């Protein structure tokens, strides 16, 4: 029997009802995507506005604060003019937005280099670090989490579970920068096998990536395990077992895909957390990324650079969230209904 006769045979009202339900589903999805993109645009706009407003929220005269009490009034006035701080707020805002779009992000107060140039130099290193870390994290977390879930389900292997959760909890509670200090001590100071800092060859990326990924990998593996365990306790797994499928098929085909939703959600959070952690880890390892630049720009009150970096980091986080939500909406259509 073919699909046409099949649909034809159904009572007419049912056919339309079901079709209505189907288009309703696609419509919910489209609506969700539009909504989500709207939220993204709004967040981006808020971020830009925040970056713009930052300089105006600083108590006192920001330029005087940046140049110090000894700076001549002429210099202060010149810098104020350069930053257009004397114009009406609205025209400053318009000028700022225009600059962002046209690629004129201002000039660093300290180095006098164009901000875009500084970012272009530094950003790739940060992206490299974050990307590598993310991949390593996943490669560690997924197998460990899955394996541990299978081994420790129904309260089996209590000792293994206790050991694993204990270690995972402790390691994932150690902040990345401390992990960095410990790794430096062990591998660079004691064993002298890896370079301590800077970006000098492929070896120098190992410690920063390890510092960033160890904790988050174990944290994510715990999440994978807990999710998988809860999925394994759900009714449809019992149904799968009632069909007497091979255990492998039960785990990989029935349980794992259903544990993915939560894993991706939390993985996304973890990834944006990673972006923040790179700031400190880069400082420890003197990695030539955006992190150390951000810190020094805050300390030296280099406003244009600071604004730009805030924008970049913020945009990274927002994009990650957007991608995660999009992936989820495709993998798990029900998530769009829940949201709407």
């Amino acid at each position, binding site marked *: 029997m073919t*699909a046409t006769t*099949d649909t034809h045979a*159904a*009572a007419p009202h*049912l*056919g339309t009802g*079901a079709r209505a339900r*189907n288009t309703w*589903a696609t419509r919910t999805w489209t609506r969700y995507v539009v909504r989500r993109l709207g939220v993204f645009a*709004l*967040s981006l706009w808020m971020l830009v506005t*925040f970056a713009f407003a*930052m300089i105006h*929220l*600083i108590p006192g005269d920001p330029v005087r604060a940046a140049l110090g009490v000894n700076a001549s009034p002429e210099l202060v006035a010149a810098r104020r003019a350069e930053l257009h701080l004397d114009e009406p707020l609205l025209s400053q805002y318009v000028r700022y937005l225009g600059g962002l779009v046209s690629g004129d992000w201002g000039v660093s107060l300290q180095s006098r280099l164009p901000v875009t140039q500084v970012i272009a130099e530094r950003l790739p290193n940060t992206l490299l670090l974050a990307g590598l870390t993310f991949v390593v994290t996943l490669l560690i977390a997924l197998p460990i989490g899955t394996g541990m879930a299978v081994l420790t*389900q*129904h309260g*089996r292997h*209590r000792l293994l579970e*206790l050991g694993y959760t204990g270690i995972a*909890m402790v390691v994932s*509670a*150690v*902040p990345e*920068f401390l992990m960095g*200090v*410990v790794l*430096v*001590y062990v591998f660079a*100071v004691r064993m002298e096998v890896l370079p301590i800092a800077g970006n000098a060859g492929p070896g120098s990326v190992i410690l920063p990536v390890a510092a960033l990924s160890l904790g988050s990998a174990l944290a994510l593996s715990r999440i994978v395990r807990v999710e998988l365990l809860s999925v394994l306790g*759900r*009714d*449809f797994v*019992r*149904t799968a077992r*009632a*069909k*007497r*499928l091979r255990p492998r*098929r039960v785990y990989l085909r*029935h349980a794992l*895909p*259903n544990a993915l939703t939560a894993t991706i959600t939390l993985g996304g959070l973890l990834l*944006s957390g990673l*972006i*923040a*952690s790179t*700031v*400190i880890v880069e*400082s*420890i390892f003197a990695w030539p990324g955006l992190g150390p630049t*951000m*810190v020094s720009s*805050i*300390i030296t009150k280099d406003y244009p650079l*600071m604004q730009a970096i*805030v924008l970049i980091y*913020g945009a990274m*986080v927002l994009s990650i*969230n957007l991608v995660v939500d999009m992936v989820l909406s495709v993998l798990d259509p029900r998530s769009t209904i829940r949201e709407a």
Partner: protein
Amino acid sequence: MPGSGGAGRRVSDTLRNPLAVAALLAGTLVLGTALLGPVIWGEAAETNDFTSLDQPASAAHPFGTDKLGRDILARVLVAARLSIGLAVAATAIGMVLGVLVGAVASMSGRRLRRFLAMMIGIAVAFPGLLLALFFAVIFGVGPRGAVLALGFAMAPGFARLTQTLAASVTSQDYVSAARALGVSRVRILVRHVLPNLAEPLIVNGTVAAGSALLAFAGLSYLGLGVQPPAYDWGRMLSEGLNSIYTNPSAALGPALAIVVSGLAFNFAGEFAAQTVGGRARVHRKVPAHVPADAGPRLSTSSDDAPGTVLSVRDLTVRIPTADGLIRPVRGVDLDLAPGEAVGVLGESGSGKSLTALAISRLTHDPVRVDAQRLTFDGMDLRGRLGATERTRLGTSLSMVFQDPMSSLNPTMRAGDQLAEVATEHQGSSWRDARARAVERLRAVRMSAAERRSRQLPHELSGGMRQRVMIAMGLMGDPRLIIADEPTTALDVTVQQQVLEVIQSTRERTGAALLLISHDISVVSSICDRVLVMYAGRVVEDLPVADLERARHPYTRALVEAVPTMQTPRDERLSSIPGRPPDPAALPTGCPFAPRCPRADTTCTIEPPLVRYAAGSGAVACHHPVEETS
């Protein structure tokens, strides 16, 4: 009082967990140091020993000395107060701000609520450390700026938490009831919402304080937090890192302090959460060999049952729980002739579902199943199941569960969930298997079967999902259908449809049916015979037609407790006083004795044996109701 008893047990369970004890100890230690550190070691931390500058660890200075010859251990201990104090201050700011915004958001009108929720949602998406760095720009470098920055950075998280918690509390019926009473908004907030929010908020606050500690150390490390000459762990760390080659302990000392106190906060919070949520259960293993049942064999049913599709003798299920080993199923006997339909009736917790799962070998650790006999279609199901047994079970034993939504894999097309039976057990190709799945869906009268088979479960209605479950059993050649409350989750009219599908399936395949339900009318509409279960035992086995003439007092009461269309409106319903016995503390005699109007002293001492009566059924009662009454 049972309520506080439960909480007390949770606390003692938590205390039995070594990690929890460690967290508690570390927490006390850290707080103690923060309070007393500067008082005890304040002087040592400021004493310059110019004879030993920048020294590595030694007996006199366990963590060595710094550039000015001060003892690092003493400085770490003294720095505890500032480090922890600042973290707690930041957490307090974040919590107050967040709870305020969250409470306003949840109490305000629709527009404002949605707007605030969106703002909070956007802010929450940013990692805390990043937000703190953003705010550090505004509040400036230094401890005050850092505390404010961190506090502001933590606020969105607390706002979100407050909002979701408040939303879940206000959606509870007791808040609706209070509103219906006319209780004022403020009073509802104070009496009903806030008290139910306090616990999780405090738990989360503790965990957040731990993260704040770590974040603050990070900020100080970067030079954005505490400024010299004041010092906290973060600043000590960054100084120590400069001399990591000459004196690594200068960095490791503060690092250790940060980790230990961060962990202490985190774990204390986490275990508090587990205690509150009652998750920190200690599991105990079942001893491998325990006599199946301490009492005598309870039934007198004949031991050979030829020509049965299912034959069960002395089925016992044991489960270790926090209250000790329980036996929710105790010595069940059961024979099913081919094509026979048998119902299992009983209250919630009487062991109906466990019996079904035990028979079909779907229980798992730590549940233990024992039986003197468990044969299905000539196969002994005790012991390990080999590949052939698996295949035969997969094709000839069909299961239907109560909740068709949760019983189907939400991420797999309905048709594929059927088809995989054929690919797994019958070596079909996916193409053939899918075609057969569609055909089987038609057999359960699924409309538009072809299209439905390509849909996900959430796109089907409840009745359709249950049809899918039934069709799943039809992929092979079912000898027995075990259906556990197959219609309970459905509307009456749909219930009827599903029962009819089960019935016609049975007629066509000749399969036997074991139908579990608490609903007498469901059982009586489709079954030939009924087993009534109470406290893990079959107390009566009788033909459906005799239900209203049941001899066991419990069956009687059960039939009379629920009105049917035939119940006269002027007659009181019978009610059974008390509750079913706690499986962890079963009475020695008849388990029904405390609730039974016919009980006497024999009943409380001696468990009644199952007695078969001439002609029809069996009853386990010392004083069965006689026909004349």
